[in-house]
Structure formats: C-alpha cells, structure tokens
C-alpha cells in the first residue's frame, strides 16, 4: 500500500443548520513531514475544518481522511495517531496539571512518559497546582504537552500560541521543527501569518469558508509588495516609476516619492531612481501580514 497523505480532504463542506456555509468544497492534501499553516481571519472556517478532521462535527458533503483513515467510517483509527490542541482549551479545573496529563494518557492508552517529562521541562509546566489556579498561558502549555506527549504522526493545532509568552513561543516553534524533521506532520491554524511563517512550509489561506490560495511561504513572500520611500535632492516626475510592471506610486510630495513594488520590480525601481540624485532610499522588508491582507482584498474584488 502506498503511504497515504497525512491529511486529505475532498469536497469537504459544512453548512450549519442555521444556513451558515462555514466550509465550502475544501480539497486539501497535507503530506508527511510537512508543516502546513492554515490561515484566515476569525470565523473564516479554520476551526470548522479542524473539527471535521477530528469527527467532532459531521460534513454536509465531501470526505476527509487523516493518516489514511476516513474520519467518518474509521473515526477512532483516524484519531489514534493524532495530537490535538483545541483553539479554546478546556481542561478539568479540579485536577492538577499532573493528574490531568496522567488522565489523558490513560484515556489514550499510550504515552511516552520520558517524552512527556521532557516536554514538561522544556515548557516549564506547573504540574502540582489545580488547573483552576493557572493562568491562560500555563494552561495552554499543558495543552501543548498533551498534544505532543504520545509522539503522534499528525498534530492538529488550532491557534496554538495564544497566551504563550515569547520564550515559550520560540520553544514551541522549535518543537514543531523537530516534529517535521522527524517526518511527522503539523497542521497549524492561525489568524496571523507572522505566527506560522517561521515554521510552515506551505500556507493555505481560507476566507468565508473557501480556500483561496495555497502557496509556499517563500513564494508568498516574493509576491509581497515592498513599501519604498525615496527622497530626491530635487523633485522628480513620478511618472517614470508608474510605467514599471507592478509598481504603484502612492504619493509624491516635494522630493519624496512613496511606491509599492513587488520583489520582481526592485531592480528596475533602483535603476530608475539612480538617474536622479538621491538623499535617501528606504525599502521596508516584506511584511507577510500585508500580503495576507492583499489576498483578502483581491478575493473581495473578484466577487
């Protein structure tokens, strides 16, 4: 048998009884060893997708398979080698962290105690106090540990870094990289591109229940617009920039010209600018957050 994809969906759709089309015709493959960022604003359908993958809710059309097992007909098998961190984690408040992790390990029937202890140490988890006394960040760390502690083949993480401090976020990224290097798969949802760009190989962008783009993080960055501010010694005619492919002149005042330009046009922009005497040249580094917004806008325009 050929090895199956880690996650595969075909025409996966969910329309809630109130008529909301939360997910429309999703076709997606996430391969083994891949870190896949699943991006979209709140309410775009990210959590709906994830809950369909875990068989917590049922599709109105289409199908999904995790680890090669259909989520509906082989639900338990499809979830066996999966670690899940919910977007809104609710633990048993009366238990201590240790009791909660022990209980979840028994519920799964398998856990790697040594691995769990390492994770607890890396994230500096508080184990001996009741969960109701823990901050959101400290609860989230327990959530991260329970998702990883049985060494799952597929990790499904819904907005995982909420509440984690920067130090823990870096540790978390490190754990994700190690997981992928190990040939295992991470499916990471987020509303912030910044959160996944350091770890994800590919990114899928979802909006209003539709997947509007899947691309590598690298090429997303290439498509991103640079914001350029050029200060000339004497005012120049901005029309010479306007003619360049993909370049837009945002504003001109006295000697200052503000442009937006894709990576591909940078060479031409510099050469045109170099015909004049320069005082300053500032190009802001690619901001993925803005491509993200750009994609949303494009999508809006097409409707």
């Amino acid at each position, binding site marked *: 048998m050929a090895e199956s994809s880690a996650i595969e969906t075909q025409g996966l759709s969910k329309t809630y009884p109130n008529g909301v089309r939360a997910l429309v015709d999703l076709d997606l493959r996430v391969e083994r060893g891949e870190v896949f960022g699943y991006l979209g604003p709140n309410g775009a359908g990210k959590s709906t997708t994830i809950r369909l993958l875990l068989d917590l809710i049922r599709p109105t059309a289409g199908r999904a398979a995790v680890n090669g097992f259909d989520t509906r007909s082989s639900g338990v098998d499809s979830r066996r080698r999966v670690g899940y961190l919910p977007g809104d984690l609710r633990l048993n408040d009366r238990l201590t962290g240790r009791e909660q992790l022990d209980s979840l390990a028994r*519920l799964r029937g398998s856990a790697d105690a040594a691995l769990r202890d390492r994770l607890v140490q890396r994230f500096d988890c508080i184990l001996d106090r009741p969960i109701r006394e823990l901050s959101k960040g400290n609860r989230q760390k327990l959530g991260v540990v329970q998702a990883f502690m049985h060494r799952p083949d597929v990790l499904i993480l819904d907005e995982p870094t909420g509440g984690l401090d920067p130090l823990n976020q870096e540790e978390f990224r490190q754990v994700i990289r190690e997981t992928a290097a190990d040939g295992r798969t991470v499916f990471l949802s987020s509303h912030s591109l910044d959160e996944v760009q350091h770890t994800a190989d590919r990114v899928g962008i979802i909006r209003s229940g539709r997947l509007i783009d899947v691309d590598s993080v690298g090429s997303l960055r290439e498509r991103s617009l640079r914001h350029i501010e050029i200060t000339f010694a004497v005012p120049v005619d901005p029309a010479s920039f306007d003619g360049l492919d993909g370049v837009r002149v945002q504003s001109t005042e006295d000697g200052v010209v503000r442009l937006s330009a894709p990576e591909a046009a940078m060479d031409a922009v510099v050469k045109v600018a170099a015909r004049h005497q320069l005082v300053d040249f500032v190009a802001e580094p690619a901001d993925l957050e803005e491509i993200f917004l750009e994609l949303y806008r494009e999508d809006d325009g097409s409707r």
Partner: protein
Amino acid sequence: MEAAELLNRGLRDRTRALIGWCLGVAAYIALIAAIFPSIEGEANFDELVQDYPEALKSLFGFSGNITSGPGFIDTELFNLMLPLLAIVFAINLGTRTLAGEEEAGRLELLFAYPVRRRDGVAAKGLALGIEVAIFVVVVFLALLVLDPIFGLDLPLGRLSGAVVGLGLLGVLHGWLSLAVGAAHPSRALAIAVPAVFAAFSFLVNGLHELASWLDPFRFLSSFWWIGQSPLAEGVRGIGLVVVGLASVVALGAAAVLIERRDLEVP
C-alpha cells in the same frame, strides 16, 4: 478499553459530592426512624390518618397502618422522600456528566481522543449506575443499623427489594437524563425531561385509583411499577424487570444518539 479511564475519572471527581449525599440521606433516615417509637402502636394515629382526604392518603401512601415499622418507613421514606432524593441525585449526575460537560466545552478534547462516543457515554452511564448503587446501599445499611435501635421490625427480604427498586428508579431517571443530553446539548432539557417524567409518574401512581381517566396511564409511571409500599406489601418482581429494561433502553438510546450529531463546541 480506554474509556475505562472515563469511568475511573468520573467516579473520582465525584467522591466528595457522593460522600455528602450519602451522609445526608443517612442522617435524614435516622431522623425519621427516631420519631417512630413515639407513634408506635398509637391507634389514634391510624384513626387520625383515616380522616385525611382520599387524594392526600392515596398520594402519600397512607394506606395500611402507619404505626407499624414497615408501614411507617414506607409512608415516610419509600413513598416519596427516598425516591425523590435518589432521582434528584441521579438526574443531577446524568446532567452534569454529559450535557454539563458539553456546555462547559470539555467534551471537545475528550472526543478528539481515540474514544468512541458511545463508549464514552456508556462509561458515564456505568459511573452513574455505580454511584446510585452506592447511594442505595447506604440507605439499606442505615435502615439495617437503625432497625434494632428503634424497633422498626423491617422484613429483610422486602427491605432488599425496596432498595433495589429505589436504585432502579434512580438509574432510570439518570440514564434518561443522559439520553436527553445525548440527543441535544442542553442542560436545561436534560434536567427538565426526566424531572417532568418523575413528577408525572408520582402523580399518576398516587391518583390513578381515584381518577379513573388516569388509570390507563399507570403503565407509563415508573413509580407505579415499583409500588408504593415496598416494605408492607413488597415490590413487584415484574416491576423491577420493566424499570430495569426501560433503563437499559434509555442508556442504549443515549449511546446511539450521541453518535448522530455534531458536538457542541465552545
């Protein structure tokens, strides 16, 4: 089976509440039993009761002579108070463990684990059954201990039957609450449906002999199947079987219904 952890967890999370309920019911039974010596053999008391309105007598089981130990305990405990406590205890438990957990968003992580939903519900049902069993065993032991102290003279065989009937009554309403919670994620409904059923059962059982139009409905009354005077007259074996089967049907329905819908998530 992984769901065994659910059973274990369910029981351990509830230890303190269970101890509280058991101490409470034992104290209440002791209080009632302690009254008995002061009315034992008081013939005027039986006469007084005979003058009560028929509906009242029928509803509250003032049938035989309440100045005997079995008649007294039937009227004061097994007619209403103990079934009420057992049912409230079981409905509360059935509502918390499923609808309550779902509303609190705690079922999401649970069922994202490789746990079959019906196994999860079965484990919760079993935990409920065990708790109700512990509760009625405490009732049994309390009466057993108090019997010689206050001279209740309870027949042991009938007391056993009465306690089994009490337990089945609790389990039926508790599992009914699970079934409602499995069908629809609402705590309010999971309480209301079995509570209304219990009230209906009590009233029909108490009044069907006086109001003939209620008579055909007696078969739908859980109280009627168990009987009103389990110590003076004994419980009906067929009644225990019917209530037991109905309970199993309710739990089976819960297991089927939980598989058929979207889980409510926070």
